[in-house]
């Protein structure tokens, strides 16, 4: 069995999760404060990948970053960056596609924390950043972990977007889900089964680990 699709998938999921963590924390914090129309529009845009067919997103990314014209041509000419049929293209697509899985749980967790926690911290002379790092983040660890794992697991299973913008180039864009599809197309059910089992096992272990970690935090109201 060729292991490269598995490694590529894990690499893609890890990089996407890391990027989304850096982007997601400030964006979720910003969205959790206040409810202006502008914020509602931004939140709706971030949430779109949840409801859009992945092929729609993939199609528009393919058009937008096509090196033949517009933004794609400009990026190619000025920075020699090509997002179509490349690994960086997969990362970009995954970041957009998995964004609601990172931002949603963090934003909800922030909104569920009592406002008095931040207020108490401010009266002690602490800035918003200090309060976020020392008070808010540690008190939403379970949700943060859920967001990280959801993002990672969701990226592992991407297919439509990846196929549209990345194609099926071995060692570059041929991730596990594409390899499964490819194997089935070639009637190689044994290989498809190996990849599928591996993906199943990896995601199952991750989800179990999260449930075990969050066991203490999740208390039934009937206990």
């Amino acid at each position, binding site marked *: 069995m060729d292991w490269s699709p598995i490694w590529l998938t894990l690499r893609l999921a890890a990089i996407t999760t890391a990027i989304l963590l850096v982007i997601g924390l400030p964006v979720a914090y910003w969205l959790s404060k206040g409810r202006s129309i502008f914020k509602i529009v931004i939140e709706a845009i971030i949430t779109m990948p949840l409801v859009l067919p992945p092929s729609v997103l993939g199609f528009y990314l393919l058009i937008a970053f096509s090196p033949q014209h517009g933004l794609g041509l400009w990026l190619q000419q000025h920075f020699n960056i090509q997002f179509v049929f490349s690994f960086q293209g997969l990362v970009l697509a995954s970041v957009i596609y998995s964004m609601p899985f990172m931002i949603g749980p963090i934003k909800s967790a922030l909104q569920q924390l*009592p406002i*008095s926690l931040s*207020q*108490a*911290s401010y*009266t*002690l002379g602490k800035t918003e950043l200090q309060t976020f790092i020392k*008070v808010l983040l540690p*008190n939403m660890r379970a949700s943060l972990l859920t967001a990280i794992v959801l993002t990672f697991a969701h990226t592992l299973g991407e297919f439509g977007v990846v196929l549209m913008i990345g194609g099926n180039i071995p060692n570059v864009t041929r991730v596990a889900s594409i390899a499964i599809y490819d194997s089935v197309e070639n009637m190689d059910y044994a290989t498809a089964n190996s990849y599928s089992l591996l993906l199943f096992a990896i995601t199952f272990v991750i989800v179990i680990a999260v449930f075990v970690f969050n066991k203490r935090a999740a208390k039934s109201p009937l206990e």
Partner: protein
Amino acid sequence: MIVIDIEKKMRAYEGHRLLQVKAEVTSNSITRITGPSGSGKTTLLKIIAGLTYPEKGKILTNSITWLDTDAKLNLPPQKRKCGFVFQGYALFPNMTVKQHLEYATSDQEWISELLHFAKLETLIRHKPEYLSGGQQQRLGIIRALAIKPQILLMDEPFSALDVEMRQLMIPQLKVLIGKIEATCLIVTHNPQELDEIADNSIYIK
């Protein structure tokens, strides 16, 4: 001297009601704030601390303007550094008793004194969920005192304490407040409990 002259629209069961307060509070004094439920006692404390904003008004402390809605001046809560004891305590679930105080100050001597005052010396490694209601309330009080505030705002600070602890703490609190030369405003539903230490009263209708 704290000069307060504010007006704030508050949401009520049917529409809005207006909180209007005009008062002068002498420096280094203890003032109790009383009034019926929903009259805006907590809101007044939050306005002084900079945690909520009135539509109209001014707050001056020792001739420094903290709030002036006409001049669009509003000092953030971080710069006002009012000690604030929240009605629901607002303790940080991730921090132990000691960490709460160390988050507020690095003065270890002062921390020891506060722990002794609140009778929490033996519980320094406990997180709030392992403290009783009274212990949590005492932690809320000493966390607010930890920053040695110029103004100490306390919202029902003795409601969870038993009679014995209340009788022990209130006179000691007066000593501590005197030591840090703070001006103290205490919201209470039980005005009599402050008879011994209160210098003034504000009644909010």
